[in-house]
């Protein structure tokens, strides 16, 4: 389409997609720093490798699609995808596996659907899901923080909790294990705090709006609190769920990907709450270490439906 530059409005705020994306990357720095503090330099290596792989895949895809590479390689969106995936996988993951995940995310999750703005699924979560089903062992074992991580990888707190409950251990016995920390998972709780800090920064800078994170956290915390209230022996607390796994990373960085999220404010409340609830359900009764990735992908599927029924009331029209 031809853009008529002489058409009003003649003034714009000057926001840009790259600015949004680089703010998101900046907000991810605390998470990366915490991972480095807990697990050593390998997370940094993985993040760098993921970034390079993502840029290469983006360039390849743009070339195959015969698009000009310039604005898209610079827009930073592919780096956000890479960073999210690198921070979501265990730092012990072999590099080639992460590279495969990134390639899947960029080539299939994003460009197969038409590139920036067109992907119905969160690309990073597409990559994550593929890795999880392809390499279940490597994807579910996290190193113990601060230790000789090569020797001490083990099941995550969420995994331990589920296994423990199935083997009829009590909550006290389970939470005494090495995988648990003060509130959630040992180490994991610090990662969640770091993600929360970055997320609050995004809220303050108005890069993300509150609807999705708040709804998602409520979607996890409310059922967790209710079930713990009525059956404390079989259900972990809301605090634990909020501070374990990828809760905060999911709420502020993954579920908030605007391209694959519902689009109206009200729609985003439903969308976020759905992700939170599904996350809690998968954690509680599912067979996976964490539910965020699948919850996001399932709710991505529900977006057209949510969008259909959450069109805001238009000025001068009665509520539909």
């Amino acid at each position, binding site marked *: 389409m031809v853009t008529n530059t002489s*058409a*009003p409005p003649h003034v714009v705020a*000057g926001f840009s997609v790259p600015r*949004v994306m680089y703010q998101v990357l900046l907000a991810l720095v605390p998470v990366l720093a915490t991972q480095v503090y807990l697990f050593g330099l390998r997370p940094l290596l993985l993040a760098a490798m993921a970034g390079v792989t993502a840029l290469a895949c983006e360039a390849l895809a743009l070339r195959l699609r015969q698009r000009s590479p310039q604005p898209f390689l610079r827009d930073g969106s592919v780096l956000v995808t890479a960073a999210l995936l690198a921070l979501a996988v265990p730092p012990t993951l072999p590099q080639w596996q992460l590279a495969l995940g990134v390639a899947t995310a960029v080539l299939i999750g994003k460009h197969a659907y038409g590139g*920036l703005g067109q992907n119905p699924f969160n690309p990073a979560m597409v990559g994550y899901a593929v890795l999880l089903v392809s390499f279940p062992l490597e994807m579910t074992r996290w190193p113990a923080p601060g230790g000789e991580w090569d020797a001490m990888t083990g099941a995550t707190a969420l995994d331990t909790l589920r296994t423990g409950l199935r083997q009829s251990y009590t909550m006290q016995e389970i939470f005494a294990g090495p995988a648990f920390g003060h509130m959630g998972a040992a180490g994991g709780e610090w990662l969640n705090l770091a993600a929360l800090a970055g997320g609050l920064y995004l809220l303050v800078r108005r890069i993300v*709006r509150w609807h999705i994170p708040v709804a998602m956290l409520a979607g996890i915390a409310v059922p967790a609190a209710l079930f713990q209230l009525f059956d404390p022996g079989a259900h972990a607390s809301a605090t634990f769920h909020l501070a374990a796994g990828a809760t905060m990373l999911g709420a502020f960085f993954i579920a908030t990907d*605007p391209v694959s999220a519902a689009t109206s404010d009200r729609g985003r409340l439903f969308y976020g709450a759905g992700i939170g609830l599904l996350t809690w359900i998968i954690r509680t009764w599912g067979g996976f270490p964490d539910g965020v990735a699948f919850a996001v992908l399932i709710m991505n599927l529900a977006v057209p439906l949510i969008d259909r029924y959450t069109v805001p009331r238009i000025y*001068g029209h009665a509520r539909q």
Partner: protein
Amino acid sequence: MNVRGGLQLKSHKSRPLERPIRVVPAPATLVLALDQGSGEDAVAVVRPGDPVHVGTLVGSAAGAAAALHSPVSGTVREITVRPTPRGVGPCIVIDNDGRDEPATPVLPLDWHALDGTTLLERIATAGAAGLGGAAFPTAAKLALARTTGAELLLLNGAECEPWICCDDALMREHAADVVLGAQVMLTAAGARHCVIAIEDDKPLAVAAVESALGTASDARIAIRVLRALFPLGAEGPLVAAVTGREVPHDGLPPHVGVVCQNVGTAAAIGRFVRDGQPVTRRVVTVTGSGVREPANVEARIGTPIGDLVAACGGYTGTDVRPIAGGSLTGRLVAGDEVPVTKGLNCVLLATVADLPARGPEMPCIRCGDCASACPAGLLPQQLYVAARTDDADGLERFGLGACIECGCCDYVCPSAIPLTARFRAARERQHLQALERRRALEAKVRYERHQHRLAEQAEAERRAFDEARRRAGGQDSGQP
């Protein structure tokens, strides 16, 4: 305030407001566009060579076009197509003889003695039109308010656009005319009370109007100070902000008991009853870094904007884009020869520093910033998809008709998508399609009528033939 979305924009009004309103001398040649901004042409009632005086009717009212009068005395030179603030259009060119002879004696109108209906006629003959920019005939609006029994006359002094300040200047200097005009319009519309709505970034205008209200001591008229927010000066958002009611999508403000008029229009009507002269001048903001001394000027309708710039110290010399109207909804115009119309509230001589160019257009990332900014409660990101795919159902569902083309969505879009232009194009396409459908329907009706006539004709012939045969048969002896 019952208002959704909107933008808080950096104001650029202080420089023109440093100086009082300047009067631009009448030019040697005036160009009166038959379309004064409403989108419809008045009907020219003079011919080349005709003498005219100040206040001579040169264009008679037609539809959405108000009556048009000569602002000077002199001679009609020609009626021709010239550049106008809305593009190009037919214009009456008048050579000014410089004598300013009035067509009728300058006499105040004894409006207290007139009933509402007569007053409406007088306002119509004065050529009063919406000086806020729409240039819709004031009398027609007031008449609709009268027939629907609207109670509230809402005077719009919001002036939310960040560069335009002609109403601010006018309220500061001519508040008494605004109040007088409000009283006249209350009678003409048969409304019960009047609210003058002004945004809170105009404390001096508020003070001036308050003082004028004190002098007039008319309990029907009140002032309402609103938070400065773009586009509160648009009719729909303003009605919602002041009354809490929304203008229905298939109706007009009088359907919720409100009639809106601009404060400049009120002042023009106040002036009209004071001296009996029709509307032939207005206040225009001349601003931007492209002009040496930004100011508000009072100019006769038909004055080329080049004369306005000259009255403001001329150009600064940098490259400028002349824009008729403001930075968000204004229109790029041809240049110096474009004349002042009743709808022209601002000439923005913008440099690149004033209005930086947009970045390259990127794909929509559905961030939803546009929806947060939209004063009509639309989802521009969804409407955009519908416009791009020309999806009539989607355009309907996502409310293309409710878009007021304020430009807020464009302003915030991180992908620099020209959303407003796309919506306008979609609307034009729909308009053309509707026209096409109507033509097709008319053709179909014509064809069917034609077929019907043919059938009737054939039937008549058959009957005539039968009749003839019967008669012939009657004469035949072979009948049983």
